[in-house]
């Protein structure tokens, strides 16, 4: 195990453990703070994979933006911290079996898959390449994303107004 693997497992553990606390914690403010570590761990894995642009976007948008919005939403909403999040019907037993099976199949698939392997390359800055791809080959996808954002804005406004 080299230093690369060690760092990977560190970030993976950080992501998983904090994600576990996000869903099990009863206090929604604490959950939001645990989410910070989940996002941060994912950003670390992106850095390890050489995806520098995605990592920075993850930090700026998720850790910096969405989380702050989430916290503000919690703070500005009256009494939300006292609301019981859990519902009455929880089938722990069947849920565990279902999730366990799904996880097992996924794990087997990921471990034994004949992944398409490419040679290890020296990491280069991906921002320029990404910009080129988005503006040339995937320009249609890029424009469609614009429409999706517009629809999301209209939808959010429609939900928010009285």
């Amino acid at each position, binding site marked *: 195990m080299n230093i690369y693997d060690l760092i990977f497992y560190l970030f993976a553990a950080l992501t998983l453990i904090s994600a576990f606390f996000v869903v099990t914690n009863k206090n929604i403010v604490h959950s939001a703070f645990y989410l910070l570590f989940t996002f941060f761990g994912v950003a670390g894995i992106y850095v390890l994979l050489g995806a520098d642009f995605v990592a920075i976007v993850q930090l700026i948008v998720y850790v910096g933006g969405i989380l702050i919005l989430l916290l503000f939403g919690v703070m500005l909403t009256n009494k939300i911290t006292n609301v019981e999040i859990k519902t009455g019907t929880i089938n722990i037993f069947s849920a565990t079996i279902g999730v366990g099976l799904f996880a097992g199949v996924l794990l087997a*698939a990921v471990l*034994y*898959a004949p992944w*398409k392997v490419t040679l290890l390359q020296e990491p280069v800055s991906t921002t320029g390449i990404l910009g080129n791809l988005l503006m*040339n080959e995937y320009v249609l*996808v890029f424009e469609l*994303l614009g429409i999706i954002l517009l629809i999301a804005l*209209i*939808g959010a406004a*429609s939900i928010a107004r009285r």
Partner: protein
Amino acid sequence: MNFTSDLYLIYPEIVLTATLIVVVLFDLIFKRSQSWLPVLSLTGILAAFIFVVMQYGTNLPAFEYSTKNSLLSIDNLSTYFKGIILVTSFFIVLFSIFSSEIKSCKDRHGEYYSLLVGMMIGMFFLVSSNDLILIYLSMELLSLSSYVLSGFVKKSIRNSEASLKYVIYGSVSSGIMLFGISLLYGLTGTTNLNEINTILRGTNVIDISFILSIFMILAGFGFKISVVPFHFWTPDVYEGSPITITAYLSVASKAAGFAVLIRFIKSVFFSGISQGGYWNLLSYFDWQVVLVLISIVTMTLGNFTALWQDNLKRMLAYSSIAHAGYILLGVAVLSDQGITSVLIYFAIYMFMNLGAFLVVMLIANKIGSENIDDYRGLGYSIPFLGTVLAIFLVSLTGLPPTAGFIAKLYLFVALVDAKMIVVAIIALLNTVVSLYYYIRVLKNMYLVKDVIKTVHIQLKPLSFVTILLLVIPVLLFGIYFTPIVDFAKLSIQILGL
């Protein structure tokens, strides 16, 4: 790689996007004249329809980024489904003009129509996309708009419940689908459907992870067409949403889901065509067994659960699950004939299902209920609507001389020709079951006479014309169906195969 020269291939999509922007701006600038918004949307839909009609017969890849890899396929299959989506949208905008649910949100019509156009754009890209990234994104666009629309009437708790359930189920299934796409990308190194096909032909990648990734992608498609393991959202969402949106989801959204499923199966697994138009598929994944199993369970569950429903909207929701099962059987034949029967079924299903929802909506506008017990004696107090609803329900059952019979006939012929006799018999028995719950409504309307209350519905000219536009095709195609069959036979072409 010259993209501006490909722009003429996506004129319908561009027209719809322009409509979206015009609707948003019009709503912001002319706050007072909200009644013009449906007119604007109808104009946009008609303009897009003209471009779609002009495009029919084109078989070209759009936005090619290297040889054989294109983001969009403009072929007859996608053009056919675009036509279905546009006709459905046209009727839904007409429905929205006289829906009292939508009228009750007087100042939010701008959002309603812009989200409706947003759904159309999503479905347009979904039916023609040839790349997993684009499939995922257009599906998100479609889902995002429909989440908001299904909870549009915020004063009603049922609406909000429908919206919330739709969001939760929708995001889980699209998450699973995205996971599947990422697995498939990891195995093949590409997201283009044709390129995946080339790789599958070359090397032997049969493996648990490949099968798993296909199942996970199937979860996303299955959610859109609401087949059995992924149908849980359907009754609640259909019951809770405004009727216009329920009708839209049950026809257009399903059509888009089926179009992308057919394209995915044929583009990724196709290896050749044998005598009689049967596809030879790569043997990594037994589509026939999987699809037949899913569709049998789907139609049986849909039909048997519909038997117990007292709410007409909920009953139609289960009936639409059952119809998705029938249509999936047409896909499961995996032949040109099967796809032809699917296309015929959709054209007819569109008219009869929209018609049934329209009559239910007009009655609910007046009596404020969709409960089957409130329909007692309605056949006598509103004879015209009663007769029309009877025609639509008989057609949904699949009895002659209505168009529903022709749809079922071609489906069963395709099944029998493919020597899937047992499956055809099961589907036939299901049709018999469905007769019970459709006729139950008619029984309540005509045989149970309620002397106490008499309902009078004064039909406006526009709603009268809309009903005629829906009921005439249902009767006409029941007798004179050659044009629709010929048209469907021409429309099964998929680009690159």
